[in-house]
């Protein structure tokens, strides 16, 4: 994460004094304790759980349970489960389409709002940001209602102009989910981009204008290169978010039979743990999702880094 690696700054001169050597640790203790409890311990525990297997002794488990080291057995079970690998493929396809569309929309809105040509930019910015404050559950419910035939005014309007749409059909429901995610987070990403657009020094705009650049050229040659860190940051967060997809398909599954219980990797892991009582396989699935998020984020960062050097 280039964006989260701040450059080294000169420390205050007083910092190297031996006096108050315990102070930083006192100040950090509450955070570190909670971080250990809710981040380090669960990650360690998930890895441990994913490497063991619990066997019941006796015909009905009446003789107690025993724990054995299973190696990568749980990972094998998880990866040989066709529904799970299919769900990974599904979210990758989803992300390959949804993330660029959402970021393009966020970028377009940010550039338009920051251009001289926008009326009421403050009002529009607030309206676009509004969905970020709507819980994912509620956003999914609202769009779910707007997708249901017989209830949805959108389907009615489409029928008026002769279009027959079924947002909950087997081929379309994935993109209906993509719409919900885009609706929720485009405005948030837009705000991140605007924040960095505002930090571009005005001299650069003047120089571009003197060189005869129009708004489109200014956007391409001045604004886009300078907001790269913000674009990278929003892309990485979006990639992590895509692999976590859970609430939207869960809620929409109540409206349509075209979403099954293992539609996304997270739904699958949740089902393994609480429906099938296979905690160890669920742990392996969680670790795989986290690893995929890491791998994708880092390959994306590496790609961006290489493209930046080849310029």
């Amino acid at each position, binding site marked *: *994460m280039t964006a989260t690696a701040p450059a080294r700054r000169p420390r205050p001169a007083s910092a190297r004094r031996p006096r108050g050597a315990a*102070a930083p640790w006192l100040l950090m203790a509450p955070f570190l304790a909670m971080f250990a409890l809710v981040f380090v311990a669960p990650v360690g525990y*998930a890895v441990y759980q994913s490497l063991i297997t619990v066997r019941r002794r006796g015909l009905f488990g009446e003789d107690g349970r025993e724990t054995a080291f299973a190696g990568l057995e749980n990972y094998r079970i998880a990866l040989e489960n066709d529904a799970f690998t299919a769900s990974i493929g599904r979210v990758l396809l989803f992300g390959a389409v949804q993330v660029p569309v959402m970021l393009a929309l966020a970028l377009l809105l940010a550039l338009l709002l920051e251009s*001289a040509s926008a009326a009421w930019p403050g009002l529009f910015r607030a309206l676009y940001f509004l969905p970020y404050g709507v819980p994912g559950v509620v956003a999914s419910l609202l769009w779910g209602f707007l997708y249901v035939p017989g209830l949805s005014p959108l389907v009615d309007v489409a029928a008026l102009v002769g279009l027959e749409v079924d947002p909950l059909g087997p081929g379309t429901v994935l993109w209906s989910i993509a719409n919900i995610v885009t609706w929720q987070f485009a405005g948030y990403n837009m705000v*991140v981009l605007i*924040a960095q657009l*505002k930090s571009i020094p005005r001299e650069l705009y003047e120089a571009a204008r003197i060189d005869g650049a129009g708004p489109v050229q200014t956007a391409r040659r001045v604004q886009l290169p300078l907001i790269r860190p913000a674009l990278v940051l929003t892309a990485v967060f979006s990639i992590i978010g895509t692999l976590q997809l859970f609430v939207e398909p869960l809620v929409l599954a109540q409206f349509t039979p075209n979403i099954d219980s293992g539609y996304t990797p997270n739904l699958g892991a949740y089902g393994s743990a609480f429906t099938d009582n296979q905690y160890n396989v669920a*742990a392996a699935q969680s670790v795989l999702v986290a690893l995929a998020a890491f791998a994708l984020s880092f390959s994306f960062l590496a790609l961006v880094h290489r493209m930046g050097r080849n310029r």
Partner: protein
Amino acid sequence: MTAPAPARPAAAPEDSGARRRPRPAGPKARTKILVTAVLAVAAVYFLVPVYWVFVAATKSTPDLFGTFGFAPAEWNLGANLHQVLSSNDGIFLRWSLNSLLYSVVGGLGATLLSAAAGYAMAVYDFRGRRLLFGVILGGVMIPGTATALPLFLLFSQIGLADTYWAVLLPGLVSPFGLYLCRIYAEASVPASVIESGRVDGAGELRIFFAFGLRMMTPALVTVFLFQLVAIWNNYFLPLVMLADERLYPITLGLVTWQSYQGRDTDMYMQVVVGSMLSVVPLAAAILVLQRFWRGGLTEGAVKG
């Protein structure tokens, strides 16, 4: 926001910044109309579901299915509200209070913890600082859903699962909050202030509470709002942790109601009105507070 921060980070933009900066090109009337039209179309997209739920919540159940969704029908909001708020001994109100408790207490706690740790990392030079900071930032990259299941297994072993603590404790940690606090403290807490505090004989903790916290106020507002919304919107963690319906936040309660609606069409209206009610507080908060957000977002995006 009248914090006596002498050196605001350059990255935190003022709200009026847009108006001060000269525009890259002279605006022409026709472009302005075109751009504004595009922005208005986008606004319609972002507002449609919200508009729909406010209209739908005023209808009766037959009208919900029988009339055009975007047009109002006979006014039935009062009866709907009564139905939602009295259903199951007023459980919706309880869910709302739970959401409020989880997000406000979690948000305040996370802010204080992040502030203390971020300040310490910015002001003191100590062994292992870089390593520690790197590990904590790694936490930003770990999907919250990946830690929820093992955290549930851990919490059930120590008897915390299915209690208020199960949702409150994880809300107290915000790696992103620590990151914001650290870079903000580096830019806005001058060494001279700490030095003069020491000369006056104040202890290090006292200096943090008396000066550090106050100088970091703008960053603290951002961290608090981030965490408040994140906890309010969270669904997966409470789903995994809670079995007792009375401990549910709104998000979990609404999905429970939604799962009944196949059996009972009146439940549709309850879910619609419940959704409408849950949009109101955060939508209002966002419209009022959105200018505070941008400062913090900038730090995350721009520094580095």
